[in-house]
């Protein structure tokens, strides 16, 4: 079974923000929610790099660890998902996430949080695959149709890649060897550490399914 990962090659990203737009359009993301974003480091000075960042679908995800209602689960492909039926919008996952992936619609005055929304690796949620209910809560489920996440699929410079982590690592290695340099695959060490294969889990940690 593949271990799905994202890899953004900062040497190639041209900050076109097409991945951001594609994601928003594909999943009908409401205003104010940003599942994916492009961050430019050292903007306007030598060494400028842009990185497209979303949920990295970590091994040992901090969001899942700190969630007070235990609403996260990981698919067999290593994709970290959550159930919006269980989420209470407390914001703990946002405190713990190293990448700022969890997003919240404003539910009440004073900035009170609604149910969390984040990148699903185009894998939907615990509902039946490709149903209207799943689409309305989590967006499309491209993985169930045999397609990879749209952001990476339509990246014009192939900077953002999504797929089996081993394949991505090999592609990235080949690129850096050819170029003779590389500015790092951002977030990989933080997200996956040295141990690449996290065990799939679900709420209750006993394969009880989504909700």
């Amino acid at each position, binding site marked *: 079974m593949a271990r799905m990962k994202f890899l953004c090659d900062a040497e190639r990203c041209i*900050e076109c*923000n097409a991945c*951001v737009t594609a994601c928003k359009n594909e999943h009908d993301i409401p205003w*104010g929610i*940003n599942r994916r*974003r*492009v*961050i*430019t*480091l*050292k*903007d306007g000075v030598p060494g400028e790099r842009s*990185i497209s960042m979303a949920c990295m679908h970590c091994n040992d995800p*901090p969001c899942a*660890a*700190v*969630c*007070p*209602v*235990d*609403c996260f689960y990981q698919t067999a492909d290593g994709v970290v998902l959550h159930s919006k*039926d*269980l*989420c*209470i*919008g*407390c914001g*703990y996952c*946002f*405190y*713990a*996430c*190293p*990448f*700022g992936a969890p997003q919240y619609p404003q539910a009440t005055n*004073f*900035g*009170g949080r609604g149910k969390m929304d984040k990148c699903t690796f185009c894998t939907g949620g615990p509902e039946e695959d490709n149903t209207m209910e799943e689409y309305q809560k989590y967006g499309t489920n491209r993985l169930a149709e045999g397609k990879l996440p749209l952001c990476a699929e339509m990246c014009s410079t192939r900077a953002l890649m999504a797929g089996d982590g081993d394949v991505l*690592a090999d592609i*990235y*290695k080949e690129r*850096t*060897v*050819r170029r*003779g*340099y*590389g*500015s*790092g*695959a*951002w*977030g*990989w*060490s*933080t997200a996956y*550490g*040295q141990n690449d294969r996290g065990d799939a889990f679900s*709420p209750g940690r006993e394969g*009880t399914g989504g*909700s």
Partner: protein
Amino acid sequence: MTKLLRPLLVLFVLLLAAPAVQAQFYQTPGPTSPTSKDEVQLYQTPDGKLSGRVSIPDAKLGVLVQPEGREWREFRMVWLKIIAGALILGPIAVLAIFYLIRGTIRIQGGRSGRPVPRFSGMDRFAHWTTAVSFLLMALTGLILTFGRMLLIPLIGHPNFTMLAEASKYMHNFFSVPFVLGLLMIFVLWVRDNIPEKADLVWLKTLGGVLSKSGEHPEAGRFNAGQKGVFWAVVFGGFALSLTGFLLMMPFAVTGIGGMQILHVAHGVVAALMIALIIGHIYIGTIGMEGAFDAMGSGVVDENWAKDHHRRWYEEQLRNGQANQDGRLRHHAAE
């Protein structure tokens, strides 16, 4: 002839191009080129926080990596549970042992039957507004902290989500009466809670707990222990309110690092307050005979007042509040 020439030309061009193609496909790594996967900056941890610029109108998303989340996770998953668990179970255990040894602290000479008014309706309203909202917020806060560990195995995920969501809203809404009650408590009682010399004597004997004869050091309206509770509630309650309201308005004042610190402070202060209030509830109920009357009916027994607040009792006597007629007048005025 031309038939033969064309493939030859193609071959010639290909041969010329070969070195370039060769260079493209088999580029030899330079001296600084990585040779193994580990050197390909794939698993190299960036140190510290990384932020940059985003073009979407939400500047807080410019944070690329915030490693502090790891420390916060450690606090939430390990330290908060240890601190809160110890500060709840510890005092309960100590008080249980104390109760078994000492039992209820009786009124010396029993109840006299003569009442002394102690807390007015306003006093009691302020106390119970604060008390009820504090207890509800303590309970709902504990549900969010320990529920996943203790309640999900019992009631299941969907039920716990309902409970946790209700807890979240109750925790937020009861902060308002809590703060109002806290302000009332402060205004009503601050002048009786200024530390004085007699408090030192009280603290030395721990309010008479250590004396075998059961003698209590004299005290005014509030003894040193009660003054301690007052100031702890005022400062602790203020700290909880401040950190809590800032957490209720994400990004209004602080960024994510600030909210992590606020959450740690909120959790630790809340645990300390719960420990304090456990002691407060004990001494106000089963720990001491006659103490609950003060906040229950607002009227205490004369002998209780003589035991625990002799100086205050004598003041009341002088003001004509403590005798039977005085009490009746006081109640008629209400």
